[in-house]
């Protein structure tokens, strides 16, 4: 089972800075280990690229608003989100999520996408006991060993009445 590599997406510097800080705030602390944050940002870039242009723009704008909006959050003392210390950044996110309005919904959506990107990293999955490839290989083998003839017959039955190209 292989899949073709995907193009490496590019996040703008502004988005990248805000997204990095956001990832550090909403992912577990282990996101700072190794180059995980970089890889979360790459995944995030790929996810943004998969969205339609309007949704991509909305999420990117939300990140910028989140970043600049921190300036009017009193404990930040005028700093943008990307420049906040961990405790203030966390408190800022908590305050946004607690608002139950459109801003909270957008931050919630951003949080979902970024944490999905973190838990899509294979070593993070292995750390919580999820390693599907060997399992898939084993049960796929068991399937063929147990039901091989029936599977071949079933697959053939779906197409057995089909003429070969060129046949009348």
């Amino acid at each position, binding site marked *: 089972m292989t899949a073709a590599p995907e193009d490496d997406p590019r996040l703008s510097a502004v988005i990248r800075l805000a997204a990095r800080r956001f990832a550090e705030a909403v992912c577990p602390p282990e996101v700072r280990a190794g180059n995980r944050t970089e890889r979360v940002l790459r995944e995030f870039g*790929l*996810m943004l690229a998969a969205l339609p242009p309007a949704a991509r723009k909305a999420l990117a704008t939300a990140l910028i608003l989140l970043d600049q909006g921190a300036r009017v959050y009193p404990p930040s003392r005028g700093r943008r989100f990307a420049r906040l210390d961990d405790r203030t950044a966390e408190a800022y996110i908590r305050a946004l999520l607690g608002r*139950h309005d459109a801003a909270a919904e957008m931050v919630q959506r951003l949080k979902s996408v970024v944490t999905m990107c973190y838990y899509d990293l294979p070593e993070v999955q292995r750390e919580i*006991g999820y390693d599907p490839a060997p399992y898939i290989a084993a049960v796929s083998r068991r399937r063929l060993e147990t039901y091989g003839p029936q599977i071949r017959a079933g697959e053939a039955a779906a*197409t057995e009445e089909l003429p070969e190209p060129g046949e009348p």
Partner: protein
Amino acid sequence: MSVRRGLTSQAEITHELNLECGVVVVGSGAGGATVAAELAEAGVDVIVLEEGGYHPTGSFTAETGRALRTLYRDGGGGMAIGRPSVLFAEGRCVGGSTVVNGGMSWRTPPRVLDRWAEQEGVLAISEEDLDPYFARAESLHSVGLQDPETIGRDSELFKAGADAKGWNIVPNRRNQLHCAGTNSCTTGCPTGAKRSMLVTSVPRALSLGARLFADCRVDRVTRSGAAVTGVTGHVVRPGGRKGPAITVRARTVIVAGGAIQTPSLLMRSGLRSASGQLGRNLSLHPNAMVTAFFDEDVTGWHGVHQAFQIREFAGEGLLLTAVNLSPTMLAGILPAYGRELGALMADYNRIVTAGPLVTDTGTGRVRNVPGVGPQVFYSLADRDAVRVVRGVELTAEALFAAGARRVLLPFAGAPEVRSPGELRRLLARPVSRRSLQLYSIHLMGTARMSEDPRRGVTDSFGEFHGAGGLFVTDASLFPGPIGINPMETVVALALRNAQRLIERRDRLGF
């Protein structure tokens, strides 16, 4: 049998294409692939245009992020705007949503068919009328029960909870050929055991002479007067870039893009329904997810995606199911972040996720928004919100009965619940509608069929009222929600409508 014969992907299209055929089909999912194969078998010259790419079975892995980007529209992140908004997912690849659905295959409940006949005057829609089409759908896609060794511990616990409560729970009927239980349904079945359109009707259609163009988006249905003349569109390059134009001339056009894309395409083609129902009447079976933590190792990804359904509350429009989610998906829905999220996810292998699917009475609408494209709006009815909460409560009760130590509810801001008593106390107070976290994978009803052109967009067999040669064959046709997984209904209607087309081929001119 090679699927490559008759299949053309974007890399092979270097310049503008002008094609001609008897019937052009837009979409290669449950409706499109089925009707294409049936028509090809009858000797009709068929072209299928699919916006998504061709991804063969051998390319499928359990990598959720990659699957969301390659097999789903918009990375699986569709959103129906409302209070609350509802996240939804649509497949976009050769084989359509059947490549990424859970593989549940159920016949339409007779009471639903009766309602369609009585309220919309839909012809030839009784249980008896559809029986041969259901039987053929089940034969084509190997529908049956799961082999016992593939049922995972999460499903066993869910069943144990239902049994302890004395509730009716049934094993799922699935379109699978000795499914291995890899739990990869939503990222593409890596063994081909799930008999999606990718491994059944698509190769069948191609072997019978149909031509399929992947990575080709249809922009408009073209017309001359009241009659359709084909479609125009363009090749989709990697990253969504626009490639060469495509024109297909055909006297019959069948649109099968699903309940969001089908009305969007018809509306941007300038088509209007006298009923005013095109793009309206959207149902989406809202569902919500309860996350339960057990003391024992569950390892829910060892076993089939979804083995049982609790039917005890079907009369109330509630189905309850347990569905294992990959870490990627679970992290996206858990109501936590940072260190707290890490602590919850550390127990990943002790988690069972389950929830209700609601037969909704509220409806939504698809509109084309300039500069944005199709946008979905959905208004959750008050009584549906009440049923979501009840479904969540029942699901949590079943999970507690199975031994869950604590559960997280899909209500923003809700505290963790540690006992059935706490659950009852918490839900004795009203739950804010806006706090409900809802998802959907069943989208229906936006080009509903009715014999009465004042009520429906198409007639009983999917022909668009007022546009000669234009047909719809997907879940858009459903006059309302069906309360069950919709794939087999889509396939059965496609088989039935294809037969009707073949019977009328002289008049239709193909």
